[in-house]
C-alpha cells in the first residue's frame, strides 16, 4: 500500500524523505540535521568529532577550525593577512558583498595562510574559507597563495593546503582567471626546488581552483564525500542532456578515476599529514 505513504507527512517516511529535526522541548541543546542520515545531532557531539556526523558525513568547516585541528597547539603564525581584495572592475554590488561577508565570517579573505608545526615539523599551511564567498579565488586569494608558495620556496618548507572553492571569483573577471596561472607558476617553482606540497580537497573543490593549485600537489588527499570537479554538475547536465552517473564528482569518483591519491576522514588527517611530512624529511 505504497500510496498510503504518500499521504503521511514526509518526516514519517523511513527513507529518502528529508526529515525535519525532531523537537525535544525539554532537551534545550542546539542540534544540526545531517543531510545524509537525516538525524538531528547535538552540536556538542559534532564539535567533539571535528564536525563529522556519526554516519560519516563531513560538515563544512571554517578555515580556522581546520588550522586548529592540524597545527600543533599555538604553532600557527598567520602570514599576509593584510592582503585584501579591492573592487578592481567596479563590479556592481561587489564592494557591499565583500563588506557583508567580512562581517559575517570574521575573515578578510577566502584563504588563511601561515606557517605552523604539524607534530613538531615545520611547514607552510593554508586553508580556504567556505563561509567567505564559498572560497572563491580573486586577486587577493591568488596573491596570498602565491606569496605562501614563494615564502615556502625561499625558506625550503613543505606546503599543506586545504582547498574549498566554488572557483574563480567572477566579480573580479579576468583578474581572477589570471590567478590560476599565477598560483600555478608559484607552485611549479616550489616543486622544482624539490619541495613537497600536499593538498587536501574538501567540499566543494571546483572550477578554477581544481584547474590550478588543487590538482598540482605531489600528494592529493580528499575528504569523504567531498564534491571535486571542474565544471558544475548542473552545467554538465544542461550541456550533455544526460543524467549524471551515481556519485559523479564525489571524492570517491575522482579517486576511482585516478585523480586523488587517497581519501582520509577528518579524524585521521593530522596523523596522515604528519606521517607524509616525516616520509619526506628522510625520517
Amino acid at each position, binding site marked *: 500500500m505504497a500510496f498510503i505513504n504518500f499521504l503521511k507527512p514526509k518526516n514519517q517516511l523511513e527513507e529518502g524523505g528529508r526529515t525535519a529535526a525532531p523537537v525535544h522541548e525539554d532537551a534545550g541543546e542546539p542540534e544540526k540535521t545531517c543531510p545524509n542520515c537525516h538525524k538531528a545531532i547535538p552540536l556538542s557531539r559534532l564539535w567533539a568529532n571535528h564536525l563529522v556526523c556519526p554516519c560519516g558525513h563531513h560538515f563544512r568547516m571554517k578555515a580556522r577550525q581546520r588550522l586548529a585541528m592540524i597545527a600543533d597547539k599555538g604553532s600557527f603564525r598567520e602570514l599576509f593577512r593584510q592582503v585584501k581584495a579591492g573592487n*578592481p572592475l567596479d563590479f*556592481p554590488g561587489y564592494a557591499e558583498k565583500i563588506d557583508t561577508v567580512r562581517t559575517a565570517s570574521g575573515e578578510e579573505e577566502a584563504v588563511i595562510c601561515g606557517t605552523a608545526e604539524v607534530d613538531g615539523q615545520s611547514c607552510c599551511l593554508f586553508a580556504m574559507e567556505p563561509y567567505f564567498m564559498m572560497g572563491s579565488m580573486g586577486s587577493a586569494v591568488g596573491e596570498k597563495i602565491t606569496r605562501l608558495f614563494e615564502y615556502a620556496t625561499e625558506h625550503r618548507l613543505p606546503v599543506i593546503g586545504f582547498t574549498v572553492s566554488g572557483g*574563480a571569483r*567572477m566579480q573580479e573577471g579576468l583578474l581572477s582567471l589570471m590567478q590560476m596561472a*599565477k598560483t600555478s607558476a608559484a607552485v611549479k617553482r616550489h616543486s*622544482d626546488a624539490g619541495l613537497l606540497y600536499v593538498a587536501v580537497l574538501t567540499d566543494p573543490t571546483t*572550477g578554477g581552483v581544481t*584547474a590550478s593549485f588543487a590538482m598540482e600537489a605531489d600528494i592529493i588527499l580528499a575528504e569523504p564525500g567531498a564534491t571535486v570537479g571542474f565544471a558544475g554538475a548542473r552545467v554538465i547536465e544542461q550541456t550533455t542532456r544526460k543524467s549524471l552517473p551515481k556519485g559523479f564528482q564525489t571524492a570517491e569518483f575522482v579517486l576511482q578515476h585516478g585523480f586523488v591519491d587517497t581519501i582520509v576522514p577528518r579524524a585521521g588527517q593530522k596523523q596522515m599529514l604528519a606521517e607524509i611530512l616525516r616520509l619526506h624529511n628522510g625520517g
Partner: protein
Amino acid sequence: MTQTPYSKVKLARENTRPTGLDYISNLFQGFLELHGDRRFGDDTAIVGGIARLNGTPVTVIAIEKGHTAKERSYRNFGAPNPEGYRKALRLMKQAEKFGRPVICFIDTSGAYCGIGAEERGQGQAIAENLMEMSILCVPIVSVLIGEGGSGGALALAVADRVFMLENAVYSVISPEGCASILWKDAAKADAAAASLKLTAQDARNLGVIEGIISEENLGRQPFYQNLRNLLWDQLEELSADPDLVGKRYDRFRRIGTSGLQG
C-alpha cells in the same frame, strides 16, 4: 557603429569569422598536423603541429570551432576535452626539445563540460598546462581570435605575449552564466558582459594582454600579412631574451596586484 561589450561577445561567436585552421593555412607554410595525446585519444577541438613561419619551423596549436554545422559538430564546437590540452602540452614539450617557438590560437567558449571530460580530469589537464607552460624554455605567443572562455582558454595562454583581435573577448565566465548565477536571470547577459570587462580594450587596460590586432581586412591577405609580421617581430625579440622564463613569471605575477590592499 559602436559595439557594446555584449554585441562583441556575439560577434566573437560568429561562425563566419576565421577559425584556427584558417589562421594556420594563411599564416604558415607546410603545416604538418600531429595528432593525439599519447594517453587516451585525439581531440578534434584542438589542432596542432609543426609549420614554417617565414621559413622558420614553429609549433602551432589552435582551438578549432569549424564553420559549417557539420564541421562544428566534428570539432565539438571548439570545446576541448582533457586530451586536447594534453596533446597541446605534448607538442609544446616537443617544441622545447627542438628549440621551436610556440604559437597558440584561442577560440573557445570554454573547456568541454561533459561527463567523460570530468572522468578524465579536465581540471587536472588544465592545471598541468598552466604549470608546465610557466617554465617552458621557448617563446610562447598566444592570440585570442574569437572567444576566450575561462580556464579552457587560459590553458593555451600562459604565454610571453598575448594578443587579442579587436572583437575577441576574454572572460572568466560567459556573460549568460554570470547573469544567471549573480542575478538569477540569463537575460541580463548584456549588463554582465559590461561588468565583466571582457573586451580586448578592457583586457589591455587590466594589463592582461600586450596588444590588440585590428580586424581591418579580417580574413584577407593584408590582415594575415600584418599578423605574420607581428608574430615574427615578437618571436625575434623573445628568442633573444636570456631571461624568458623569469619574465614570463613576472608577467603573471603582477597581474591583479595593483588593486590590492596590503
